[in-house]
């Protein structure tokens, strides 16, 4: 299974690298987020009740998670294209592990997201954000990024199989990503939220990802907060992966 995953993962990476323009766009896009949102909400940090530090300090973990979310949520679109072009059938008639087919796709979009995150951290550091970029903090936030990437790539693939068509998948993708982002502390701290939104954030995996990254990227890391948030996120990810794999197995009609 691992060998199959590796070969298929390699295939997707080759394909990605052969579309350099596209790869470039996916790398540039998060920077645009960082700059636009960073400037737009700059003065929010002046409001009473905002945590200490500049808005940029607060926002970097949020935009990091946003990048992961937007990057991995469209993984299912290319799965559909592969189903329609017969590539998936070709894999299915080979004695390939079914898990490997899903896993390689999900890993591929996660790998892309990691590259984006690395660039973003470098740029936000250059822009003067006060971040704890020690190796442990970086490693731990990368772990969260991977978990979240896996989670949403899996959800997207699961929906792709359930819906069987691109248009509804895109609608669901939009419906999922934007509200989930606003229902989290990515843009504003929890103290700014009305009560009912606070309750929604409790069942939002994105919120846990933001909280976890924020807990370790600040200058005094809060390990227990990180551990708690990361654990809950891991549970979400496991459930999403399980759903995607079982949906894929059911594809054999």
């Amino acid at each position, binding site marked *: 299974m691992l060998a199959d995953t590796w070969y298929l993962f390699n295939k997707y990476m080759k394909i990605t690298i052969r579309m350099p323009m596209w790869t470039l766009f996916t790398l540039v896009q998060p920077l645009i987020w960082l700059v636009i949102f960073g400037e737009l909400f700059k003065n929010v940090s002046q409001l009473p009740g905002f945590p200490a530090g500049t808005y940029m300090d607060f926002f970097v973990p949020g935009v990091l998670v946003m990048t992961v979310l937007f990057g991995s949520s469209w993984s299912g679109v290319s799965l559909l294209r592969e*189903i*329609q072009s017969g590539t998936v*059938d*070709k894999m299915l008639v080979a*004695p*390939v592990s079914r898990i490997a087919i899903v896993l390689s796709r999900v890993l591929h979009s996660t790998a892309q997201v990691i590259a984006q995150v690395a660039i973003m951290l470098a740029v936000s550091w250059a822009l003067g954000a006060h971040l704890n970029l020690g190796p442990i903090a970086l490693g731990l936030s990368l772990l969260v990024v991977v978990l979240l990437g896996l989670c949403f790539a899996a959800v997207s693939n699961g929906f792709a199989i359930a819906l069987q068509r691109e248009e509804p998948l895109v609608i669901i993708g939009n419906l999922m990503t934007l509200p989930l982002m606003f229902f989290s502390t990515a843009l504003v701290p929890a103290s700014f939220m009305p009560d009912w939104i606070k309750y929604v954030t409790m069942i939002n995996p994105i919120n846990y990802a933001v909280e976890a990254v924020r807990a370790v990227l600040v200058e005094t890391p809060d390990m227990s907060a990180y551990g708690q948030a990361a654990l809950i996120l891991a549970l979400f990810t496991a459930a999403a992966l399980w759903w995607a794999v079982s949906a894929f197995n059911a594809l*054999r009609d």
Partner: protein
Amino acid sequence: MIQVRGLTKVFPAGAKAVDELDLDVSPGEIFGLLGPNGAGKTTTIRTLATLCGFDSGEVIVAGYDVDKEPEKVRRSIGVVAQNTGIDYFLTGRENLELQGHLYRMKKSDIKSRIAELAHYFELEASLDRQVATYSGGMRRKLDIATALIHRPKLIFLDEPTLGLDIKSRKMLWDYIEKLNKEMGLTILLTTHYLEEADKLAHRVAIISGGKIRAVGTPEDLKSSIAGDAVTLDLEQQAWAAQQFAAALKQADYVKDSLWQGNKLHLYVANGAESVPKITELARRHSAAILTLSLSRPNLDDVFLKYTGSSLEDTGEESGDEWWKQWAGKGGGGKWQQQWSQDQQAAESGAEKQGPEDFQETQQARPASQPASDSSAQTGGTWPQQQWSAEETAQWQGGRAEKADTPNQTEPREAKSADADQPSWPSQQNWPNNDTDNEWAAQKKWPGKPSEK
């Protein structure tokens, strides 16, 4: 090599895709499944290739039960599906390598096998180019090569030449025959091209409505129809034509006759002798013969005999399986299936979503297929003579006048079907040239089933 007993597969909507199908393919033969769109060919092949489950029956492929040992079946077979499963951004070599890895072959083995296959399919020069630069025929060759990488004993070819030009099609036929002869491969292929089944297959099974209607060598099947085939185009509704047809049935030289829309198929002992008699009879009954053609029986006549409809008149293959789930209802995928079930429960046995519904929606020709495909098929390739309008008119006793030049805006297909036909001023129900377009569009459009 393949034994199928009582295979039945029911679509979630309740229609039977495959219905109590039996099939035996012996080692070393090329076996053709011939049938129109929606006949169950692809479903059958997908079931045999472990891609799709089934509801009842027993399926043994390459000595293994598909249901119990799918992994072993997968190792022994190669599959070339309708949609090429190769990646356009990878080179030919990378596609082959990946496939080799997925079959867990050793690296050195993959390398030597690629060299072998590239040589065999004459792909050496383009092996390190991206597949996106390949021609349609080359892609199909590469597709077959990837299916052969692990040296299977049996391969499935689902519509191997669909959408290819004549030249590439002929080239692929040569390869398929060579593979069978030189590598000893057993080949199960599906097709809706009569010529393909006739040329390639050692044995042909005629499949329609999920059932196999007849099996045999193409020669045996054709000789099951004695004599020559005469096809007349008539106005079926016209009283004169009805009288004429009834008289023909009585005639001693007509062995068998069959209405199909406006076409009357006659099977006669001797074509050359019968044609003048037929036209004479038509004149006596004042029945208008629009076209008359005489041919040796081909597989289409066989098809007509066993299924009651002509293969050439059934819709073009759309090949989009997933489209069926969307037919007319909105929703999709699993939710669509659920919807259909609920709907059926609610209507409690009222009108079911049968295969007819699907066929209706599939009449829309997919954009990927050239529109001239079917007319080229009927007009060009078949060894069939068509009498010209003048000749037919002569037999009709010179009553006819040559038709006006057809309207230039008329679509190409309609023109090729109707351009040669005379119009008959004496007949009241014959439309004039102003409505000719409409008439042609309604009744003569290739790929649309005739009214019955």
